[in-house]
């Protein structure tokens, strides 16, 4: 299959789903003119009624998407992670809790596409990677695409799923080009990006590419790493992870979220609980420093996982 740009893959998934099912519509801020890059030309094909530019009222329109989904529509909401904070009541009190709280009476096929704009000098208010907070809250499925194939396949699965889904789109990937390898990607099935025998590296979102780069570098030094892309965090494919650790005996988790109670924390606790006897060295989490995102480039670059930190971690597991 051909190569595709990440944002283009998202656009294609939306258009295909809107063509397939007239109940699918999209809403968000400045989406008709595709200010955030993934919704170009949709309103030309589907009209303004199914491509809604919203007022700056995240709590209002996040909730309206929930209400529309309850009565048969399949809304896709586009947003930026940092704007989710003002809509938390609707995301948590309604989207996450409704089905259980009402004894299964409510079905909410709603998708939130939240872009994570970090690492680009956007400072503390526009650089959030908050998926771990949502992992802690039952009721929301969470996807973390790592490339164009994931972006398209996971979004299509999300739209067809009958539960609320948040797709955390790594904005560092928006302009990147990668090979399209699969068309549909099920939730809860991790991808083994590279096979190896000495150490397992699990990457989240763009960190998959970072992990792969490290693995390729270390291969030249004779270290064989297995790289895993979980694709979804809820559900999490722990079987693939545990099986890999059984083989390698070592684990490094690369997570751009803050280190405390991160996705890396959860994965590491699962392996500690269920794969402890396979481990030959302590698990290492390479996650973001527990500070807010500073504006100055000299400081911001210190926060996130990078090649040096990940390489060092892998080598440490082999000491």
């Amino acid at each position, binding site marked *: 299959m051909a190569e595709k740009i990440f944002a283009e893959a998202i656009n294609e998934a939306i258009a295909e789903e809107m063509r397939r099912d007239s109940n699918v519509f999209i809403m968000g801020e400045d989406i008709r003119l595709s200010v955030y890059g993934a919704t170009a030309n949709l309103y030309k094909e589907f009209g303004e009624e199914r491509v809604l530019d*919203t007022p700056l009222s995240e709590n*209002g329109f996040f909730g*309206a998407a929930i209400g529309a989904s*309850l*009565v*048969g529509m399949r809304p896709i909401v586009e947003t930026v992670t940092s704007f989710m904070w003002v809509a938390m009541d609707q995301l948590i009190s309604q989207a996450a809790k409704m*089905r259980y709280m009402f004894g299964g*009476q409510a079905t909410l096929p709603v998708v939130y596409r939240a872009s994570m704009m970090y690492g680009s000098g956007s400072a503390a208010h526009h650089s959030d990677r908050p998926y771990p907070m949502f992992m802690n809250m039952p009721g929301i499925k969470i996807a973390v695409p790592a490339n164009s194939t994931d972006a398209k396949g996971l979004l299509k699965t999300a739209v067809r799923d009958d539960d609320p889904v948040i797709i955390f789109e790594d904005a560092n990937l928006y302009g990147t080009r990668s090979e399209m390898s699969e068309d549909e990607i099920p939730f809860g099935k991790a991808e083994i990006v590279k096979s190896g025998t000495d150490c397992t590296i699990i990457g989240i979102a763009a960190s998959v590419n970072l992990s792969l780069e490290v693995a390729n570098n270390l291969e030249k030094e004779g270290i064989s790493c297995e790289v895993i892309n979980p694709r979804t965090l809820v559900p*999490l494919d722990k079987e693939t992870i545990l099986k890999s650790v059984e083989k390698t005996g070592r684990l490094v988790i690369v997570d751009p979220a803050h280190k405390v109670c991160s996705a890396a924390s959860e994965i590491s606790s699962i392996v500690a609980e269920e794969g402890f006897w396979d481990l030959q060295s302590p698990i290492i989490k390479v996650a973001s420093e527990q500070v807010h995102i500073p504006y100055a480039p000299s400081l911001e670059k210190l926060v996130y996982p990078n090649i040096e930190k990940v390489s060092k971690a892998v080598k440490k597991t082999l000491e």
Partner: protein
Amino acid sequence: MEITKEIQKLMLERMWTIRTFEEKVMEVHEAGEFVGAAHPYIGEEGVAVGVCLALKDTDYIAGNHRSHGHPLAKGGSIKKAMAEIYGRVDGYCNGKGGSMHLADFSVGILGESGIVASSVPVATGAGLASKIGKKDFVSVVFFGDGASNQGACHESMNLASIWKLPVIFVCENNQFAITTSYQNSVAVDNVSDRAQAYNMPGILVDGQNVEAMYEATTEAVKRARNGEGPTLIEGLTYRFEEHSLGLGRVRRGEYRTEEEINKWRDRDPILIHSKKLIDRGILSEEECKEIESNSYSQTEEAVEFARNSSFPEPSDLYEDMWANPIPKP
């Protein structure tokens, strides 16, 4: 506006259903028969009943924490409502929701929210679905004077108005957010005045007059179905009881007087409507009494049903989480 005799009679029946249900809930709560809080709707029955009887079965409503009255007004099962309050498997929500989430989706309810104003965006979204899907249904949300100060309410009214959605915002102004008077917390004289800011009609109605609520709603429904957009209806009413059962006693004398409470008790929506039906010769005094006593027996049956229903089993804990289930972590 001509209201049929059947509807006039049904108004009385539904108001009695809610009243006797709530009296029973207070009684069995006092006796310790169920856990948690409950917020009696006594005194406000005219609002829910007047609004719901002006709707079709295919229309949707969403409620709030004080929402025992809403599913009952829309024709939801009384037995299942009581069983839910008792936390039993035969409740609307299989015992997982309780008093503050007393939603019967089978009669078009989109949830009753324990978080104040949280249902307002949801109901607005049902209106959006009606418009995008070119459907005929309207969506109604019930919220209080307290909720009218939440951003969710204002954002939703603006959305509904710019998109001309078939949504009816019904403010049940019972005058207090727990102990805080709306007069001290709303910057305008009436909640309905706020409609002006959203370019929609804002109608102030006597909430103790079930027929007035019915008429105002009928007008709003007509506008909504004609594509003319949303309406804000404020039903001015009064909470006869305290805020909540089970959240400790509030000394009522410190935020409202017995005199004020008694003045409003004289304006009981059930008394007002019964008198009208008798004066019009639609029902005799005996027939009104019969409706009342039927309601009491119906409620007794509901309590018996609830008491005889089982609590959920431990194996039910993980049920109802997902529409497309995923493995337990």
